[in-house]
Structures are given as structure tokens and as C-alpha cells.
């Protein structure tokens, strides 16, 4: 049968208008830094420089925190829940109106396929604001305060630090619940993906959100540290690496500053011999190659029951030959660019170690662009529990395959990691799904599906994957104070 090639189907860039340089968003307007440091944000697909971004100094962070404090003490703190909610509804609507612009900008800055930014990141981000808008005047119904006690109250100024894998979506996971509960925020986007956060600042302006309620400071680790260490911050919300999460926990130890941490993962995706194999293969592909595997809850460890190992691997490899790697703006692209040179180095390093430790490496034939940061979809078979590729988070399009014989063995292997963010189970047997779900020490269990997210559904990890939940009624808990809490 002839194989028909896809014609290029690039999404137009004309919808976005990227400025040559961006200031910091403090007190409702873009301002200049007290220092003169800046950095470039580039398109990881082409290494093209997109814009010059301000590197916020400790003084800038201080100014942002003061601005947030002023808004908290003033207009935002006095505002009714109903009006806070209406601002969030406005923001949700503007994000929907400008969804295409956000999607193209996200894809340019992050390298993820346009079909993902367009169909997942941006709609979910808007949905998070829409969902939390409704909570703003209903917090006493959320079951957070003790019976008969005072209704939940905001915590104050929240410092938020987010990663580069889902820039706008992580922003919305952080800002929407914080604002709904009556807090004000200072948010630092990741240094490689600041553009959609800066566009979000414009959304805040269009919504006439009172100045100081949302402040956005761009920068790298030093800026984030300045925010986390700032004495005027009442709560830290962080999504990122377990290493940085631990450092944050140490920084605020012995104080009354609170934290929610959403950290790394090494999810097992467990396929039993009675699973519908074709569906499971789709789930495996989605689990590890969605967003180039730059997903904390990625199904990076495939555990296959021995009788179906060969069949699953054969079908998986065949499926992977159809994966389209390339221009993220092309609407047919499945796998985009790796977000940064540093991340690409990390993926290469761990993959090299996996080979050295004896795992068998396989990638489908695919042509990678000559510019930018690229890594082919990669499968390691013959992986042992002790291999570093089975223990450490790769955060890339790299799947490790292990096998098991009994459900007990699958559970033991799945739980044999310091992480506990997510897990997947594929089987046709309902009772086994529920038993497995009970046994797995993970915050999210996807059964016969994978990588599903929703604003109503709490997300977050066990063990070293962090604490606190984002989304749903449970996500509000991290943004309110109740009862006799100080």
C-alpha cells in the first residue's frame, strides 16, 4: 500500500504580536527593573530569539510583593466574593477569546505541538479560571472550615513559581484558586517560557483586574529564590523539580509560611494481559510522548505483564513509526521540540547511561530538524528496577519497559520509587482496577486512560512528589486558613 505523506499544515504566526522586550508586571502595569539584567527567550524548535525578557532583581521582587500586599490589604481584601468571582469569569472569557493567540505563543516559546497547546493547554487554562470563579463566593460550602467555625479566610500574599512544561496551564492552576480564595499573588514563570504569562498580564489589564492582585516577575533561579525567601510572602506554591521543592521546604522551615509543592514523578503505566492491547498502546503513547514527555505525571515506566510483552512492544513500535516529529506549529505534528538545550542534555545523558547499564534502545526512523533541540521518541526494553532510567525522572520522550507476572509484583514495582504522583492501569477486569487503585501509592490513578486533567479533579502527589492538591474542592485547601490556624 502506498504511504501518503502529509502536506505541511502550519498554523499562522500572524495572530501573535511579540514585542522585542518585556518589562515586569507589577501593580497593574509593565515596569522596568531596578537592575539592567535581561535574558533572551528563544523558540526551542528553531533557536530563533523571540524576545528580550527582564531578569527581576531582589528589589523588583520586593516591589512586587509590596504591590500584592497593598492590593490584599486594600481593594482585593475588601471585595466581595461575588465580585472576585466576576473578575475571574472575565479573565476566563478573555482567555477563550484570545485562545488562538495564546496557543501559538505557547507553541513558539515552549516547542510543544500546536494541536496540544490549542486543544489542551489553553482550553484547560481558561476552564480553570471559569471553575474557580464560581468558588469565590461559595467558599463556606467547600467543607474546609470546622462545623460552626469561622468561614475560610484568605492567607495573604502568595508567591508562585511554575515550570516550563505547561506555562499558561500551570499559571492558571496557581493563580485561579489563589484569587478565588481572596489572596493576591506574585508569580514567576520559568525562564525559558515567560511569554504567555506576560500575555496573561495583558489579559488582567483588559479585565480591569485591580492593580497588584496579580504581579508577574520574570527571571531564573535567583529571582525565584528572592521570591521564596521574601519575608512578606505568606504562602509558597511551587511546581517543579523535587530538588528545588526540598530547598523551598528547607527555606520556610521554622516559620509560619505555608507551602504546596507539586514535584517530580516516575509513573508506572501497568498493562495486564487482559487489556485491550490497541487501546493500551494508544494510552502508552499518550502517557509518555504527550508534550515530549515533559510531564511530571508522564507514564515513563511501562510495566507489561509477561504474556503480552512481545505483542505490546511490537504494536507499540509499529505505532511509533507513525509519530510525526517536527515543526511544532504544524497542525499534524505529534512530537515537538525539547524545551531547552539543558533539558536535551539531561535526556541524552540519562539515555546514554541506560544503554551503558544494559537496556536496549530503540527509536523509529525519523528525521530530526537540523536546528533547535530535538530528541526522537525512544523506547528502552530490558530495563531493570535498578537502572537509573527506571528510577530517575527523565522528563523527555523516553519510555522504559519492565515486565511483571502477578498483580502483587506490579504493585511492588510501581511503588518502588521515592515518587508517587501518578500511575496507569490497563485491564478489562473491574475488580482488579479497583484493587490496583487501592494499592498504588500515587495521587492520581488513570485506569484505562492516561494524562487526563480537569479543573474539578484534584491533582498532586504522595511521597516525594510533593504535598497539597491543585484543582477541585481539595485545591482550595492550600489557599485558605481555617479554624484556629494562624
Amino acid at each position, binding site marked *: 500500500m502506498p504511504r501518503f505523506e502529509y502536506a505541511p499544515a502550519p498554523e499562522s504566526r500572524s495572530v501573535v504580536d511579540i514585542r522585542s522586550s518585556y518589562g515586569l508586571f507589577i501593580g497593574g502595569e509593565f515596569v522596568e527593573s531596578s537592575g539592567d539584567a535581561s535574558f533572551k527567550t528563544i523558540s526551542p524548535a528553531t533557536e530563533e530569539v523571540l524576545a528580550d525578557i527582564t531578569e527581576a532583581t531582589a528589589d523588583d521582587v520586593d516591589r512586587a510583593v509590596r504591590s500584592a500586599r497593598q492590593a490584599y490589604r486594600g481593594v482585593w481584601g475588601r471585595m466581595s466574593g461575588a465580585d472576585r468571582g466576576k473578575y475571574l469569569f472575565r479573565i476566563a472569557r478573555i482567555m477563550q477569546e484570545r485562545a488562538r493567540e495564546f496557543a501559538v505563543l505557547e507553541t513558539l516559546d515552549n516547542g510543544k505541538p500546536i494541536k496540544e497547546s490549542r486543544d489542551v493547554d489553553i482550553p484547560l487554562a481558561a476552564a480553570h479560571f471559569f471553575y474557580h470563579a464560581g468558588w469565590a463566593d461559595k467558599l463556606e460550602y467547600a467543607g474546609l472550615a470546622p462545623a460552626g467555625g469561622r468561614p475560610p479566610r484568605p492567607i495573604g500574599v502568595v508567591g508562585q513559581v511554575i515550570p516550563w512544561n505547561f506555562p499558561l496551564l500551570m499559571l492558571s492552576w496557581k493563580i485561579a484558586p489563589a484569587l478565588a480564595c481572596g489572596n493576591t499573588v506574585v508569580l514567576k514563570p520559568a525562564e525559558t517560557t515567560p511569554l504567555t504569562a506576560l500575555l496573561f498580564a495583558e489579559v488582567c489589564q483588559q479585565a480591569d483586574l485591580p492593580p497588584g492582585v496579580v504581579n508577574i516577575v520574570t527571571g531564573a533561579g535567583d529571582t525565584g529564590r528572592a521570591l521564596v525567601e521574601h519575608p512578606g510572602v505568606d504562602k509558597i506554591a511551587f511546581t517543579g523539580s523535587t530538588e528545588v521543592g526540598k530547598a523551598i*521546604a528547607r527555606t520556610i*522551615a521554622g516559620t509560619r509560611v505555608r507551602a504546596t509543592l507539586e514535584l517530580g514523578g516516575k509513573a508506572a503505566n501497568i498493562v495486564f494481559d487482559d487489556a485491550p492491547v490497541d487501546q493500551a498502546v494508544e494510552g502508552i503513547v499518550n502517557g509518555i510522548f504527550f508534550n515530549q514527555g515533559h510531564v511530571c505525571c508522564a507514564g515513563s515506566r511501562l510495566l507489561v505483564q509477561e504474556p503480552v510483552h512481545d505483542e505490546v512492544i511490537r504494536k507499540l513500535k509499529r505505532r511509533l513509526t507513525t509519530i510525526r516529529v517536527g515543526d511544532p506549529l504544524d497542525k499534524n505534528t505529534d512530537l515537538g521540540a525539547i524545551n531547552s538545550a539543558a533539558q536535551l542534555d539531561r535526556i541524552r545523558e540519562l539515555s546514554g547511561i541506560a544503554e551503558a547499564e544494559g537496556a536496549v534502545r530503540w527509536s523509529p526512523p525519523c528525521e530530526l530538524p537540523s536546528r533547535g533541540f530535538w530528541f526522537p521518541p525512544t523506547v528502552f526494553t530490558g530495563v531493570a528496577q535498578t537502572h537509573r532510567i527506571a528510577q530517575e525522572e527523565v522528563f523527555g520522550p523516553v519510555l522504559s519497559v519492565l515486565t511483571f507476572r502477578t498483580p502483587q509484583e506490579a504493585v511492588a514495582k510501581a511503588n518502588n520509587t521515592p515518587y508517587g504522583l501518578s500511575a496507569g492501569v490497563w485491564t478489562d477486569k473491574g475488580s482488579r482496577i479497583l484493587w490496583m487503585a487501592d494499592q498504588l501509592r500515587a495521587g492520581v*490513578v488513570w485506569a484505562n486512560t492516561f494524562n487526563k486533567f480537569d479543573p474539578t479533579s484534584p491533582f498532586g502527589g*504522595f511521597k*516525594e512528589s510533593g504535598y497539597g492538591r491543585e484543582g477541585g474542592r481539595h485545591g482550595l485547601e492550600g489557599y485558605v486558613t481555617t479554624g484556629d490556624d494562624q
Partner: protein
Amino acid sequence: MSPTATRKAAAPAPRLDVRKTYKLYIGGAFPRSESGRSYVVSDTKGRFLANASQASRKDARDAVVAARAAFPGWAGATAYNRGQVLYRVAEVMEGRFDQFVDEVSAAEGLTAARARATVAAAIDRWVWYAGWTDKLAQVLGGLNPVAGPYFDISAPEPTGVVAALAPQSSSLLGLVSVVAPIVVSGNTCVVVTSGARPLPAVTLSEALATSDVPGGVINLLTGQAAEIAPWLASHRDVNAIDLTGAAGADGVVWGDLEVAAADNVKRVLRPGGNGATAVEPDWTITPDLRRVRAFLETKTVWHPKGR
């Protein structure tokens, strides 16, 4: 020899009481400290009460092993079963009411009436928490109405092995108020008792041992928090730590323990108070779910719907 002396000699001698050896409670057994150490426990007026075992780092590690081993069974027990077991603790304590009153009175320098009220409150606290076991999932969990054809449900689960510093001042009511909310949801625990007032905790362990609480679910170490707590705070197989008993504990800086706890992202329940100070709560206040929530994880399970 005077007639009086003769009469005295003829009367039956007062019975020499059999004193208790106060030991640790680890994995359902009552060992002495492996270190061979004990320390003098006195009442509030400085009179000798007993020699208590002085738990060591290794005792703490043994206790963590016991707590970890007990975790799957306790977490996997039905909520109804856990509720009955915790209610049984109240039953057994009730039977030793006077013994607890004597010990709490001696430990805390309370009048008999205040000691009785304190013991009563401690027993009633078990009853309150016992009734929560099979309600937590309904109150704290629920169905999530996701925008798609999926069944999506969230429910609380125990976080695992919890280390706890029991209150220094309230030797029984405070202890129960810290331990019950940890184990009610299926966690197991290693508890460092009040340093200066450890004896009611040892008697509590005897009540636990005879009330169907599986061995290892609650492990009680008498000794000094300053010595033992750092090992628990940095222990990689402990999932969470309750620092309530840092208040008034000599040589304990709770911030340092929280730093150590970050090594494996432990959940930390900070002591009461403001800033760096630590204040022991008023244990007579009716509790809420705050302490229970501190040691829970929310697990969310998705499944597609389809014909």
C-alpha cells in the same frame, strides 16, 4: 517492750506493693531500651515515681520498622474495623480509669477532680475519633464532575508512617489528642512521649496492647525528644512528622526538625504558636479535622465511561 509495740507487731504488716517496670512499646511488645538506659521520673514536687526507659536512636529505628510493617494491614483494614478497635481503646481505658487518674495526677500535679476530668476527656477523645473512621472518605472525598466521559473520584488515604512528638505538658489527654487523629485514617505512628511525664503513656500502651490495636500501629518511646526527634525527622521511611510536642521540649528547635524533614518531603504539622515559638494547645477544646487532614493524601482515580 511496751504494750503498744507489742500490739503493733501483732497487726498484719501493710502489703508491700508490686511496682511496675515502665518500658517502651514497640511492635506490640514491651522492650527496654536497647541502650540499657533508664531515667528517673519524678512527680511535680520532685518525688521519685519510677525509672523510665530512655529510648535511643536505635529504638526509634526499630519502632519505624514496626510501624512500616503494620501500615498495610492497618490502612487496609475496613474503616468499620478501625472504628471498633479505636472504640475498644476507650473501653479498656475506662476499666483502668483510677490507675490513669493516679498517674496523671502524679505526673501533672493535678487535683483528683481535675485528673478525673482529664482522663475522662482522654477516653472520650478516642470515642470521638473512633466514630470518624468510616465518615472521613464521605466528608473529605467525592465525585469530580469532569468535562468528559469519565468516572472521576477522589478519596482520602493515610500518608503512611507518622512520627509524633507528644505534648510535654499534657501527658495523657494531649498524647491521645495527637495519636488518635494520626491513626484514625490508617496511618501508623512512632510517638516520643512527654520527656518529664512519660508514665501515663506507658500505661496507655498497656491499654493499646489489650484492645485489638495491631502491634506496630502505635509505638511509644519514652525519653527525650531532643535526642530522638532528629533521627525521626531525617528518617527516610517516615512520611510525616507532628511537631506538636516541640513546645516546651528542652533542646528542641522545631525549625531544625522541619529542615531535616524536607529530605524526603515529609508532611510537617507544625507546633502551635506564632513565629518560631511553639505553644502547647489547649487540649480541652473539642477537636476538628485539622490534625486528621494533616496526615492524609487525596487519591484521584479516573476511568472512562462507555458502552
